[in-house]
């Protein structure tokens, strides 16, 4: 049943194998850039671009690349797409490129991408790899949206730059500093685990 498995490939990125809340991959940039929603969105899109295209290419080349040099080949492929994304951001969205700073070039070493290339794209067809990458991207973007929304609202009193909490609200500066990232991420993972446990019990 190819349709069913396509759907499974897609869905697992959203919940069961969500890169942030379940696999805990790519934590460094996740923690660093979620201090404002706009950064989370930009980072999510940049990672998605790289993930989708490198998954495609890796699965296309999976029979050509000798096993011994596969990691080196994947990294070259990934680094190429990352550099393209970085240059594109710098040319078209200089403000976002500036606020993401070194975290766009650092997508090269983001474990989500190498992880999907090694664990999935190198063993599966182009179509399945694409669906898998799309699911992972969506899961990653969702997690970033939740994290960065919570942190921006509590840490700056704004959402996407618009003030949502009145002037009575004294921003919790800690939420946009590194400790706030750890606290929010910890709570998010705890919450995800709790839901997972409930689901398992029901089965």
């Amino acid at each position, binding site marked *: 049943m190819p349709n069913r498995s396509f759907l499974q490939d897609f869905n697992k990125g959203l919940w069961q194998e969500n890169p942030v809340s379940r696999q805990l991959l790519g934590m460094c940039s996740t923690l660093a850039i979620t*201090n404002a929603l706009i950064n989370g969105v930009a980072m999510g899109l940049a990672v998605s671009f790289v993930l989708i295209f490198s998954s495609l290419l890796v699965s296309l*080349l999976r029979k*050509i*690349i*000798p096993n*011994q*040099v596969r990691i*080196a*080949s994947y990294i*070259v*492929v990934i*680094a*190429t797409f990352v*550099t*393209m994304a970085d*240059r*594109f951001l*710098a*040319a*078209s969205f*200089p403000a976002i490129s*500036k606020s993401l*700073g070194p975290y766009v070039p650092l997508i090269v070493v983001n474990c989500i991408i190498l992880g999907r290339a090694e664990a999935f794209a190198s063993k599966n067809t182009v179509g399945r790899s694409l669906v898998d990458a799309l699911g992972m991207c969506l899961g990653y973007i969702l997690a970033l949206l939740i994290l960065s929304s919570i942190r921006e609202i509590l*840490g*700056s009193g704004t959402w996407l730059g618009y003030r949502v909490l009145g002037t009575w609200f004294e*921003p919790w*500066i800690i939420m*946009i*500093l590194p400790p706030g990232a750890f606290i929010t991420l910890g709570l998010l993972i705890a919450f995800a685990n709790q839901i997972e446990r409930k689901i398992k019990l029901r089965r």
Partner: protein
Amino acid sequence: MRLSSRMIVVLTSIGLLSGSLLVSVNFLTRDRIALNKKQEIEEAITRVVPGTQASQKLYEEKEFAVYTGKNDAGDTLGFAIQITAAGFQDKISLIVGTNPSLNKITSLFILDQKETPGLGAKISSYDLFLRFWEDKDCSVPLRLRKPAVQTPEQLSSSEVNTITGATVSSESVLNCVNSSLEKARKLKAEGKFRIEEKSAE
């Protein structure tokens, strides 16, 4: 094909492909990125030297540059000095606007900084920090006012405000500005750059 030669062929061709792809991407975006940088500086000059219609680079060295701002008639309205120096986390790059005789600051603008979000990063905010830098007498080195005050009127003519909780960032900006002014005055006295004749008279 033997395994070793296959590895060489595959890696080389992937490398070549990626290299040529990157060359074309760089070719497509290079001009745009340079233009963005230039526009950013020009916008900053217009902001710190009010009324500027055209700007011109007069002097440049590593992490330091002097620009003039001119109006439509070609009169020099003032200088914009760009400097990059150490902040609390990383380098702070800022641009300070002065009058033509380099003894009054018209205003200040932060081009780039990576200070602590929520604390030192306030140096980029006009309401919280930069408005306390407008129209300052800089014939003597500027000083920080600590503890911080609420309105610019509470500061003396050569005092600037501190950000509560970010004294190091505030001091870094102050040091940047003071040293850039000193340097600009020295360079001007040495004749390394000068205002064009028309407005000097």
